């Protein structure tokens, strides 16, 4: 058998290579640089690497060739394993922006009086002598870990076959498991969350893997295009295909935190260092929804009547459970986690929309564009909100219990106002980005005839307003009890405040003039099959 060397399309996939390359460089730096210099070098490496990749993504995006009569742009590279098309580029840009904001939050050191939010030595208690001695024992490995996770997030939505998708899933997940367990304060909670996340992640990966095997058995190929062809040519509905598809869905629905696979979300969001929560709540969701869309639209697009009913139910349950449980939370991070679950439901509503532009009136948004736009609006709000959570502190670190937040609007009006703004955007109040995002996903689902889902979506988004506004009222109108300890805002460095400012700006601009970004999502076109 003759071996043909696979030709790599370096011109298109180089942003991906940059990210992985910088991650490896980071490992080397960790090994060879003296401890004192590592922090600066690692932060610079990560930031520059992500910036270069972002610029690269934009360049790649402007130079994609049109295929399929202008319906889509781009190519299938890496011997079928990596697809660089319009949606890929759009999602890459989103992931990279979210990661840049994440790096800024990781690098914040002023909040903990000169040390980062990550534990130096797992055994040393925060503030103890042992830890003071270990000062500078910063886990600067977090930056290479972050870069590997980002690499996985870039590859995940770009995978052209199931094997690549699985590898990307693991590459993005493993660093996140580790990062979750590195909190300096509330270590037990953090380590417990990491272990849970890891065990359950491994569990769901197993389902994904088994699903791959079954689908391979059915289609005779891992390639999404080949699966699509097999599905199209086979009128009989194979049980093997259905079970395979179901198991693949389980793996992906776990990653996005859809009901009934959401159990890990609140614990992990609460336990992880807040910077990590901010980064992964946006990054993982963007990447996993990219992969979910590609799997369902490209691989199983011809078979949508098989998966649609199940996804209807999952979307409805996810929204309801997210909203109802968010109402009864008393911890900010847990509330935001359940709110993230609800947003997963709203995004799934968008996934159910009309996907082929041929079925739509000229110029209407497709569900792909609506979901990508929603991801952008949600990312700005969630990163900004978690960044603010990291500022609100009392004597024992971050104060996430509700009663500590009472009257925050009096003590720090600006920060409280920014948090209120993010909450309003998540609630989908007009003139914020969240409103336009919700409007987009609801309309596409409505056009596809998924009106029961839309009715539930509108009802739950309206009831969600309740717990968002309740928190705003808590900050601005409630007076803390006389002897209760309350949290105050610790002044951050430019890194965190800049991140929050970017979040506010993004949320505001996308709410007032969403047109350009929606147009950009529309220009991204369809997936390449």
């Amino acid at each position, binding site marked *: 058998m003759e071996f043909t060397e696979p030709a790599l399309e370096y011109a298109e996939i180089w942003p991906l290579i940059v990210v992985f390359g910088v991650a490896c460089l980071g490992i080397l730096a960790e090994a060879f640089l003296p401890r004192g210099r590592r922090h600066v070098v690692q932060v610079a490496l990560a930031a520059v690497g992500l910036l270069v990749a972002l610029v690269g993504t934009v360049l790649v995006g402007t130079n994609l060739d049109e295929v399929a009569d202008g319906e889509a742009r781009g190519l299938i590279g890496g011997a079928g394993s990596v697809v660089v098309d319009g949606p890929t580029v759009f999602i890459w840009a989103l992931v990279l922006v979210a990661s840049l904001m994440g790096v800024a939050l990781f690098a914040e050191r002023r909040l903990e009086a000169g040390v980062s939010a990550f534990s130096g030595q797992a055994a040393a208690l925060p503030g103890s002598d042992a830890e003071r001695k270990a000062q500078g024992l910063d886990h600067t490995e977090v930056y290479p870990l972050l870069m590997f996770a980002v690499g996985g997030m870039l590859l995940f939505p770009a995978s052209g076959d199931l094997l690549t998708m699985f590898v990307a899933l693991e590459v993005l997940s493993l660093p996140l498991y580790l990062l979750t367990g590195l909190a300096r304060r509330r270590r037990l909670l953090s380590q417990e969350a990491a272990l849970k996340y890891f*065990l*359950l992640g491994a569990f769901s990966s197993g389902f994904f893997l088994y699903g791959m095997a079954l689908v391979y058995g059915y289609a005779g190929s891992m390639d999404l295009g080949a699966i699509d062809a097999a599905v199209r040519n086979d009128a009989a509905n194979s049980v093997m295909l259905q079970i395979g598809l*179901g198991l693949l*869905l389980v793996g992906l629905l776990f990653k996005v935190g859809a009901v009934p696979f959401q159990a890990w979300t609140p614990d992990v969001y609460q336990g992880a260092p807040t910077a990590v929560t901010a980064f992964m709540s946006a990054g993982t969701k963007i990447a996993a929804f990219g992969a979910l869309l590609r799997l369902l639209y490209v691989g199983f697009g011809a078979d949508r009547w098989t998966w649609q*009913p199940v996804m209807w139910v999952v979307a409805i349950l996810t929204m309801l459970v997210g909203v109802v449980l968010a109402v*009864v939370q008393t911890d900010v991070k847990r509330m935001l986690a359940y709110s993230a679950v609800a947003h997963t439901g709203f995004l799934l509503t968008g996934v159910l929309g009309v996907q082929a532009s041929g079925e739509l009136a000229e110029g209407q948004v497709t569900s792909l564009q609506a979901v990508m736009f929603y991801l952008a609006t949600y990312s700005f709000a969630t990163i900004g909100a978690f960044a603010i959570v990291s500022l609100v502190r009392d004597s024992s670190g971050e104060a996430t219990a509700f009663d500590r937040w009472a009257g925050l609007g009096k003590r720090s*009006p600006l920060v409280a106002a920014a948090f209120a703004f993010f909450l309003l955007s998540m609630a989908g109040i*007009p003139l914020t980005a969240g409103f336009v995002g919700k409007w987009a996903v609801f309309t596409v689902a409505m056009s596809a005839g998924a009106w029961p889902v839309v009715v539930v979506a*509108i009802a739950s988004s309206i009831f969600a307003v309740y717990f968002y506004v309740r928190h705003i009222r808590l900050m601005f109108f409630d007076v803390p009890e006389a002897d209760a300890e309350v949290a105050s805002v610790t002044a951050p460095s430019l890194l965190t405040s800049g991140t929050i400012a970017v979040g506010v700006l993004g949320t505001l601009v996308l709410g007032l*003039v969403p047109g350009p970004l929606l147009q950009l999502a529309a220009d991204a076109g369809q997936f390449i099959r």
Partner: protein
Amino acid sequence: MFLYTEGGHSIPVVDPVSAADAGGVFPLLWLVIALPLLGATILLLGGRRTDAWGHLLGTATAVGSFVLSTLLLIAMMGREEGDRSVTQHLWDWVSVGGYEIGMDLLVDPLSILFLMLITGVGSLIHVYSIGYMEHDPRRRRFFAYLNLFVAAMLMLVLAENYLGVFLGWEGVGLASYLLIGFWQHKPSAAAAAKKAFVINRVGDIGMSLAIAMFFVTFGSASFTVISANASGAGEGTMTAIGFLLLLGAAGKSAQVPLQAWLLDAMEGPTPVSALIHAATMVTAGVYLVVRSNFVFEAAPAAQTAVVVVATVTLLWGAVIGCAKDDIKKALAGSTMSQIGYMMLAAGLGVYGYAYAIFHLITHGFFKANMFLGAGSVMHGMNDDVDMRHYGALRKLMPVTFLTFAMGYLAIIGFPLFSGFWSKDKIIETALVESPVFGICALIGAGVTGFYMTRVMLMTFFGEKRWQDGVHPHESPSVMTFPLIVLAALSVLGGVLYLGGWIKDWLVPVVGKAPEHELPFPAIVFSLITVAVVAVGVAVAWLTVGKRPIPSTAPTDVSFVTRAARNDLYGDAINDTLVVEPGKALTRGLVSADRSLVDGLFTGGASLVQGLGQGLRRAQNGFVRSYALSILAGVVIVLAALLVVNL
């Protein structure tokens, strides 16, 4: 332009000219909203620095909007009848491919009337509040919220598409929430604000779904597009949209079954009750129905539903008004009932739209007048609201008494006062169009005569029943001036109907009805109405005026009185049907969450003893139950896939 006619009457199409082409004062339209919005922004962001002059700025922006609105009205009167709709495009709100949603404003004969009412009555209430809130340390914030409300309400009536209406709709809801709960140190005020908020959410579901259906059916939310294509949509679709809009309108306008929040909303400062919960915001539902005439004309079933809801509400509110001892709640019941009249007229279609708006405006005058009068009384009575502690105030508060009396005569429909004209036309039209509802409206008028006379007698006549230490006095002139202006308007509001003016003025928006044939001359209807009202007044005189009034409410009363005192058990109905099942559901989900997620963690006593050992054990249970839930999920997903596709 009238696109099509159905059953002999025409339904106009919204076809505005652009503000730039219209010239004159029209390009300044955006300023009407921007001024109060700017006021609210400065006052909220400026903080304590603006305390000294905040109330003056707030009043000035409202008056500025009023002046501008007046200029717009004059300019509009100078234009041809067909050219009176003017639109202004501010910016592209959402613009991608086929969807074009602009931040567009529309001023036409309908919205200009609202502009005058909102900015006019709004300005008067700003002036009044300078005096009323003088001793409140948070007066500046109060004016900021009032400005915010005025801006949002103007947005609601000026928007050219339903999305813009929704923006204003949510804005007034927010302002109303903030103002009902303004005295947040009172738990009752905070609870009332929450209640109003929650009930309004239910209405908002209807509103949002209606907008979604507009997008799906017409690909747009613009009045221009929808009214031009309304004939193309099926009656089923239009009926569904009509019902959804009615749900939205019922929430905002406190119509049965979403009426329960309005009585509690009286916890807010009295100027708020006058402006938001009497004159303007609560009438937004009527505006929505009249503005959506192109929907309701194509959906007779939805129109009938409007009429039924309106009739039930007008009786419901009137009965509640009869039994309340709290002067503001008695007036709130009356507001509910009067909005029922407006809704009734709006539900009668093209025959009634103009009268709905006419009554809305006169009601805005006389009800704001009476609420401010009630505020003036409370001001003199140490904020006591119980009418059983009033009595014999007419000598001590002559201005308040006389102005309140003008409002009283207007609302009961005393001949030649403003309410006489507007209510009379509604009852007449209802009697002709559907006698059953007409007779209910007539009975409502009699009950109105009863409860308003009762309020009047208990407050200003009879014996002194004042509490110790209360020294009633007339209010300062900054408060009586708005009262005098509003009293004058309550008397003279009827001039809007001089020569049928308001009917002709609204023709470009609501269409022209064929003259209906009256079985009797109009004067006979008026006489019947006046006679029924006179009976109500006489009954009140006999039962309230002639007997001594105990200073605590008697408890040995009939079932009807007890029911009316309890708001006809509106809260109990809500509790049994909605709140309790909802709570049970939440409790169920919470306990499921606790037992699955938190149970072993929080409940484990071993955790307290040895963290390590306990945590490990708890942790095991934890992940296992998570994994179990995932496994169950897998089974369900697979089973569902297989079942659906077999």
